[in-house]
C-alpha cells in the first residue's frame, strides 16, 4: 500500500534519488506542499516543480504536466505534510481481532484497523472509515482469495460486528468498529507493506525483515537475509563481480 507516514522525509529522499516513483502526481502534490511549508512563493514553486520533473525525466513533456502542476500549486496550502512516527496498535484491539474466525479474516481486520488509524492521525477522520480500494486492501493484508470470496469475507465480518459498510450499494467504504486507543500499545506499525505478514509475525513469528529493502517476508531458510527480489539482484551482482575478478 502506498501510504507514506513521514512525507517530509520521503520527499527529501525523492529529491536525492530523482525518481518520481509509482505515483508521480502524488509526488508532485507532496513536493508542492513541502515547498509551501518552507515558505516558497507560488511562481518559484512552479519553477522548482518543473525543475524536479526535468531532473527525474529529461524527456518530460511539461505542457502535459501544466494542469497538474497548477492544481498542485493551488492546493499546496490546503493541508500540511503528514509526519507520523508510527501507528500504535493496542492490546485491546489485538484481542478483538483474535475473536474473528480464521487467520485470513484476522489479517484483513488488522489491515483495516491500521488504515483507519492512519486516516485518523493523518487527516483527522475520526469515524474509523477506510476508503481504500478493496483489491489493494486484500493485497496489503496478504490475503489471496477470489473476487467473490472477498465480498463473502467482508459480509462475515459485518455480520459479527467488527466492521460496518456504507449503505450505498456502489460504495465500498468500510468503518472499523473496534478502535480502542485506551489500552497498552503492543505493536508499532511504521511500514504499510505486507501488514498481514506483520500481524502473523507478531502472533507466531517465522518472518524476516529484508536487510536491503526492509520488506517483511516469510522465512524460507535459517540464514535468509533478503527478500526474493533483493536476494536475486544481489546474488547476480556478486556473481558478476566474482567472474570479473576471476578473469582479471
Amino acid at each position, binding site marked *: 500500500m502506498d501510504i507514506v507516514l513521514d512525507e517530509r522525509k520521503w520527499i527529501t529522499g525523492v529529491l536525492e534519488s530523482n525518481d518520481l516513483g509509482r505515483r508521480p502526481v502524488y509526488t508532485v502534490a507532496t513536493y508542492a506542499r513541502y515547498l509551501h511549508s518552507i515558505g516558497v512563493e507560488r511562481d518559484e514553486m512552479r519553477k522548482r516543480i518543473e525543475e524536479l520533473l526535468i531532473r527525474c525525466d529529461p524527456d518530460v513533456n511539461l505542457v*502535459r504536466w501544466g494542469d497538474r502542476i497548477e492544481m498542485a500549486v493551488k492546493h499546496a496550502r490546503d493541508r500540511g505534510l503528514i509526519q507520523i512516527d508510527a501507528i500504535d496498535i493496542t492490546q485491546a484491539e489485538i484481542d478483538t481481532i483474535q475473536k474473528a474466525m480464521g487467520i485470513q479474516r484476522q489479517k484483513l481486520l488488522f489491515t483495516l484497523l491500521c488504515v483507519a488509524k492512519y486516516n485518523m492521525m493523518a487527516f483527522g477522520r475520526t469515524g474509523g472509515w477506510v476508503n481504500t480500494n478493496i483489491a489493494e486492501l486484500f493485497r496489503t493484508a496478504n490475503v489471496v482469495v477470489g473476487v467473490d470470496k*472477498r465480498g*463473502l469475507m467482508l459480509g462475515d465480518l459485518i455480520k459479527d460486528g467488527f466492521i460496518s459498510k456504507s449503505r450505498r450499494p*456502489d460504495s465500498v467504504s468500510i468503518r472499523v468498529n473496534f478502535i480502542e486507543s485506551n489500552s497498552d500499545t503492543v505493536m508499532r506499525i511504521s511500514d504499510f507493506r505486507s501488514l498481514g505478514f506483520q500481524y502473523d509475525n507478531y502472533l507466531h513469528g517465522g518472518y524476516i525483515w529484508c536487510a536491503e529493502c526492509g520488506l517483511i517476508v516469510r522465512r524460507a531458510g535459517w540464514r535468509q537475509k533478503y527478500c526474493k527480489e533483493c536476494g536475486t539482484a544481489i546474488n547476480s551482482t556478486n556473481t558478476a563481480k566474482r567472474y570479473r575478478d576471476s578473469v582479471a
Partner: protein
Amino acid sequence: MAIDKTKGIVCKPMPKYWYDYRSIEKPAGDNPDELETYELNRRIVANRKPYFMRYIYPQTMRDYKSFISRANLSCLAEFRIRLDALESMPVEECTGGMREFINSCKRLNPISDNNGVMNRICRKIEAEFAGGAKEDARAEFDYSIMKSGAEYNKNTFYEIKKLYDRHCQRMSELAETHDRRVTSRLDTADYRASVLHKFHRDAAVICSNFKEACDIVLDICYQRNSTKQFAWDVASSMIVENLLEKSGNVMAYPVPDSDGDIEYRGRKYSMREIKGVRDGYSVR
C-alpha cells in the same frame, strides 16, 4: 459541443435541466401545469448515457465496470449472492432489503440500461460473442519459437527489466493524466511512440546485441501474465526475423476462403504461403 466551437460553429447549448437532475427546479406555487411539467422533466431527464455507449466511450465502460464490481461486492457482503443472481431472482422470493438494493443499483448505475432498440441490439451481439475471448486466452502458447536462442546474462536481464518497469510506469501515467475522449487517440499514439523510442535508446546502451535484447524482452513479457504488446512494440522486426529463420524463410498466413479447412469465429480460412520472404518472394 466543444469540438463544434473550435470549428467556429455557433450552436445554442442544451438547457441544463435536460441532462442535470439537480437543475430541475421545483415550482414555488401549486399551479398544476407547472407541477406536471416539473414531474415530466424529472421522469425524462437524460442524465446518463445509454447502455450501448459503453462500447463507444472508454470512460463510460470504465465507470460501468467499476460500478458493477463495487455493487457486486456489496451484494455478496449483504446477501451472499452475486448481483446478477439477485437481479434474476423472482420478485416474490426477494426480501424488502433485496428489492431496495436492486432499486438503488438501478438509480445509481452510471448508464441507463433500459429496453431501447440499440440497447437490445447491443445485448444480442454481446450474447453472440460471450465466452469466445476466454476460450482464446486459455490456449497455451510456446513463445520460444519467437526467440533467437541468444544467451544473455542475468545482469543485463535485470537492467532491461528496470527499463521495462519504468516504461510501464510511464504508460500508466499516460492513462492517468491523458484526456479520455475518443478524439485524443492521436495524442496518445504520439506519446506512446516517444516513450517506446526512449526505451529503444536506453536499451541499446545496456545491450547492443539486438537478438539478446529481443529474447530478454520476450522472457519479461511471456513468462508472466502481463501484456505482450510491449514485446511486439519494441522487437517486432527481430521476432519476425527469428520466426522466418525457424520456418526456413517461409511465411504462412490465413486468408478468407469459403472452402477453407480452418474455421474461426464463424468464418472459414485457408493457409497461403510466401517463400523466400527476405530475398523477394513467390506465393504458393
